[in-house]
């Protein structure tokens, strides 16, 4: 019984990491930028969702609004900052890191904006779903309808984006534009436009993560920061480029945490994340699903 409960606990937190990791992989896949502002974009979208529930009292209305807002935010960040930056700093030693630094600045900016509008206190953004575990007979398992929503959202994001990337022309253009923008251009791809769609996708995925994860705890300007770290570990474990890898990475991490918490103790859990990451990377340096042949190989 304890084993099954621990497993379920691991899956429910693992799904959260997976969703976060998926959002990170989507940014990476469609923009090749490590986006530190991802968490604050997701939080801002979640606040928008929160505002909508305050007005409509309906979480299911707020969810799509938050997702659309997330997409619009991602797209605007690209148009207002990244596009301009890439144009100005096209080559030279800082061309590669300038966008990363810019996203760090953006992280601070967005968090301050959130603080200015909503303050820094904890808010409650809730779903109509129960956070209490399902009950079988007289045993309540640590897996609630809320957790089920997260698992479903993870599966949905995985399937939708997996299909878009792998089987559609847009997906092909996105991959080409992110791998080799110059060659993609020479093949006739309107790279600027395609990258912008990539930023919108990534913003939408982050918003999904924020809006379904936040109801399991509280909403504050930096409430997703720690999750971002776990999500990043999960994404790297999965090879950073693989959607399936991100999900499995998240589950490995969540289940690993749960068992360490149960059988070793709570004092080591934070370190355990890095420990699991190091072990995975030692066994498979390119991550669980990384490609053998890579551009950087």
């Amino acid at each position, binding site marked *: 019984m304890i084993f099954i409960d621990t497993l379920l606990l691991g899956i429910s937190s693992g799904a959260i990491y997976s969703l976060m990791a998926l959002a990170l992989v989507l940014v990476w896949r469609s923009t090749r930028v490590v986006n530190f502002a991802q968490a604050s974009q997701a939080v801002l979208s979640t606040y928008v969702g929160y505002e909508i529930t305050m007005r409509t009292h309906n979480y299911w209305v707020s969810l799509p609004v938050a997702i659309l807002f997330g997409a619009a935010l991602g797209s605007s960040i690209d148009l207002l900052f990244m596009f301009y930056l890439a144009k100005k700093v096209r080559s030279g030693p800082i061309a590669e890191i300038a966008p990363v630094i810019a996203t760090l600045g953006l992280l601070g900016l967005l968090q301050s904006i959130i603080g200015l509008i909503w303050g820094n206190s904890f808010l409650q953004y809730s779903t109509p779903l129960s956070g209490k575990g399902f009950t079988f007979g007289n045993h309540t398992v640590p897996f609630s309808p809320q957790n089920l929503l997260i698992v479903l959202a993870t599966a949905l994001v995985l399937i939708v984006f997996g299909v878009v990337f792998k089987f559609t022309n847009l997906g092909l253009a996105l991959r080409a534009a992110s791998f080799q923008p110059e060659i993609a251009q*020479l093949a*006739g791809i309107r790279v600027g436009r395609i990258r912008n769609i990539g930023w919108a996708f990534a913003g939408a995925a982050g918003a999904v993560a924020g809006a379904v994860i936040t109801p399991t705890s509280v909403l504050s300007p930096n409430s997703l920061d720690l999750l971002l770290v776990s999500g990043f570990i999960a994404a790297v474990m999965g090879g950073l480029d693989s959607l399936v890898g991100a999900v499995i990475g998240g589950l490995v991490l969540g289940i690993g945490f749960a068992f360490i918490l149960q059988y070793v103790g709570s004092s080591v859990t934070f370190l355990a994340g890095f420990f699991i990451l190091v072990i995975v990377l030692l066994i498979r340096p390119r991550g669980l699903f990384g*490609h053998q042949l890579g551009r950087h190989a």
Partner: protein
Amino acid sequence: MSDGLVVENLTVNYGAIRAIRNISFTVSANEMVAVIGANGAGKSTLLKALSGMIAPVSGSATWNGISLQKKRPEELVRLGIVHVSEGKSVIPELTVDENLALGGLWRRDKLDVSAALRDSLNLFPILATRLAQRADSLSGGERQMLAIARALVSRPKLLLMDEPSLGLAPMIIDQIFDALNHLRNQLGLAILLVEQNAVSALKIADRGLVLNLGELVKSGSSIELLGDADLRTAYLGF
């Protein structure tokens, strides 16, 4: 208006470095013009300026009367100007299939995209057996073939080829040059062929342009240039 590619007094700088200076020439349909010269002569720069990858500081270039200035590469592709850049212009992370599809993504006429795809695979049959493979698993020659095939899926009218022979075995080079020949003779493409391998290039080209330190130092028919002893010793070292 004048037909084909007309380049007049084209000059390109990289910051303070003057990469090409006051270059003028023409290329018409059905014609292959070789651009030869040593390392750093400005050959690739010339192609980049024509495909919209870099902006010239002065001079002009037109294609069938339409100015190429201030147009991005993806717009020029839509005018039929396709650049196969230096070093096997494929996307290594994508499959052969996907690389080919890329050349036709922007095109409305999907029937003709399929036809162009078939034509390309007929030209390089080896690719047909590699469709599901990632491009980075191909040999150098196959990669170059893929780059050309992808360009053909866009149905180019002017092909800008940057050193297709680089690092390839003589047999493969022959095969690629044969393909270029076919494209000029059967499909009537205009081809600007950049090569360091001057003799092989002049053998298939109609005319040649010799670049040295960014300047056009000589131009003429291939036969003329091949027989020019001064040229050999001064610029080409053969």
